[in-house]
C-alpha cells in the first residue's frame, strides 16, 4: 500500500467511525427517556453497539496513523470530524430518532456487505463481523417504522415529518469523497455512490408499505463531510468535556 492509498484508507475509516460515534452519542441521549423501559434498554443497547463499531474503525485507523483512539475521539475539534450531518442533528421525538436509525441501518447493511469483500483484510473482517449485528438493528428499527407508520394518525404524521427531514440528509451518505474514488480504484472499498440504488430500493419499499410518502428532495444540504452544523459543536463539547477536564484520568 503506498502512502497515498494508505492515507485515503485512514480517512475512509474516519468517515465510518465518525458516523457511528456521533449517531451512537445522539441515541445514547435517549437513555432514561425511552418510551418504555424495555425500549429504553433496547435503544441504549443499539447505541452501545454503534459505539463499539466506531471503536473498531478507530482501532483499524490507529494501525495506519498511529493516532490513539481516545485522542481521536476526545481531543479532535468539530472541524476535524468527518461524519455526515444526518447523524449530528439534535433529537426531537421518538419517530425522528427511530427513522434516522432505520435509514442508517439499511445504509450500513448494504455498505458492510460490500466492505466485507474488501481487499484490505482487516477491513473485510471487521465489516463481516459488524454486519451480523446490524441485521438485528435493522430488524428492530424496521419493525418500529412499520408500527409507527401504520399506527395512529399522529404516529404516521410524526414519522412522515421525520422522513421529510432526514431523507435529503441521508443522501449525503452516498456522496463520493475524493478518498472514496482512490479506494474504489484499488478495490479497497466500494464508492458509496454505488450503494444508493440498493438503499433506495430497500427503504422505499419498506417506507411505502408503512404508509409513508417518499420525499422528492434527494439533495443533501452539503456534499462535504468537513461541513457541519453548529449542533456538532455542542454535542462534542459535552461528549469531550470529561476527557478534556481530566486528560490523564483512567477508568
Amino acid at each position: 500500500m503506498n502512502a497515498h492509498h494508505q492515507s485515503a484508507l485512514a480517512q475512509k475509516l474516519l468517515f465510518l467511525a465518525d458516523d457511528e460515534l456521533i449517531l451512537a452519542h445522539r441515541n445514547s441521549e435517549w437513555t432514561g427517556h425511552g418510551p418504555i423501559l424495555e425500549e429504553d434498554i433496547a435503544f441504549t443497547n443499539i447505541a452501545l453497539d454503534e459505539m463499539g463499531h466506531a471503536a473498531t474503525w478507530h482501532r483499524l485507523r490507529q494501525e495506519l496513523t498511529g493516532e490513539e483512539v481516545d485522542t481521536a475521539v476526545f481531543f479532535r475539534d468539530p472541524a476535524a470530524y468527518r461524519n455526515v450531518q444526518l447523524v449530528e442533528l439534535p433529537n426531537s421525538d421518538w419517530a425522528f430518532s427511530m427513522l434516522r436509525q432505520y435509514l442508517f441501518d439499511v445504509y450500513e447493511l448494504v455498505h458492510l456487505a460490500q466492505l466485507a469483500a474488501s481487499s484490505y483484510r482487516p477491513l473485510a473482517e471487521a465489516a463481516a463481523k459488524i454486519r451480523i449485528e446490524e441485521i438485528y438493528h435493522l430488524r428492530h428499527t424496521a419493525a418500529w417504522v412499520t408500527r409507527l407508520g401504520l399506527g395512529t394518525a399522529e404516529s404516521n404524521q410524526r414519522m412522515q415529518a421525520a422522513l421529510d427531514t432526514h431523507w435529503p440528509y441521508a443522501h449525503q451518505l452516498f456522496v463520493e469523497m475524493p478518498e472514496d474514488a482512490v479506494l474504489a480504484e484499488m478495490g479497497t472499498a466500494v464508492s458509496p455512490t454505488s450503494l444508493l440504488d440498493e438503499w433506495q430500493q430497500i427503504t422505499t419499499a419498506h417506507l411505502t408499505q408503512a404508509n409513508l410518502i417518499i420525499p422528492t428532495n434527494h439533495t443533501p444540504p452539503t456534499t462535504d463531510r468537513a461541513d457541519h452544523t453548529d449542533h456538532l459543536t455542542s454535542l462534542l463539547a459535552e461528549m469531550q468535556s470529561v476527557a478534556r477536564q481530566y486528560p490523564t484520568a483512567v477508568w
Partner: protein
Amino acid sequence: MDTQWPRYEVFKQDRPGEPHESIGTVHAVDAEMALQNGRDLFARRPKCHSLWVARADAITSKTAEQLAAKELATDNSWQADIDPQAPTETYLVFQKQTERRGMTFTTHVGEVEASSPVHALQQAIAIFPAEQVFVWWVCPASAVTRSEEADTLPMFAPAQDKLYRLPNQYRTVFTMQKIKRGKDVIE
C-alpha cells in the same frame, strides 16, 4: 385507563439440547416486539441459543398449594372444564422444581395434548411427575412465538464476544474500595 402494554413471559435456552427456562417478563405490543425486548433484556450477555415468548395471560399457573387445595381428578368445578368431545391442542408444560436458583423461574419439561388448560394440567401432572414441583405452568403451543434457527447468529452470537458486558468487567467495586480507602482514583 390502563395504558400498560401486555406482558409476555420470556423463555431462554442457553445451549442446544437444554430446556427453555423462564427468565423474566417484558411488556410488548406484539410477539415480535416481545421477542426483541426479550433479547435485549435477557440475552445481552453470553449463553443464549433460542428464545420463546408467550403472552402472560395465555399461561395457566398453579402452585403446589393451589393444587393441594383442589384435587384435580375429583374436584367437580375443575371436571366441569373438561369436555371429552372437545378438540385438543398441544400445550407446553413448565415446572418450577427448585427455589434455589434466582435467575430462572420455571423450566420447560415437555408437551401434552389437551382440550383446555385444566385438562392440560391434569395431563401434565400424570405425564411429568417430579419429586417436588412448586409451580406448574401450561400454555397452548399456539400462543408461543419462538426465535428461529437463523436468528441465533444476529440475535445472540454478538454477545459472546462482548465480555465487557459481564458484571466482573465493571471496575466500580474496585474503584469504590479505592475511594473509601481515601486514595485518589484520578491518576
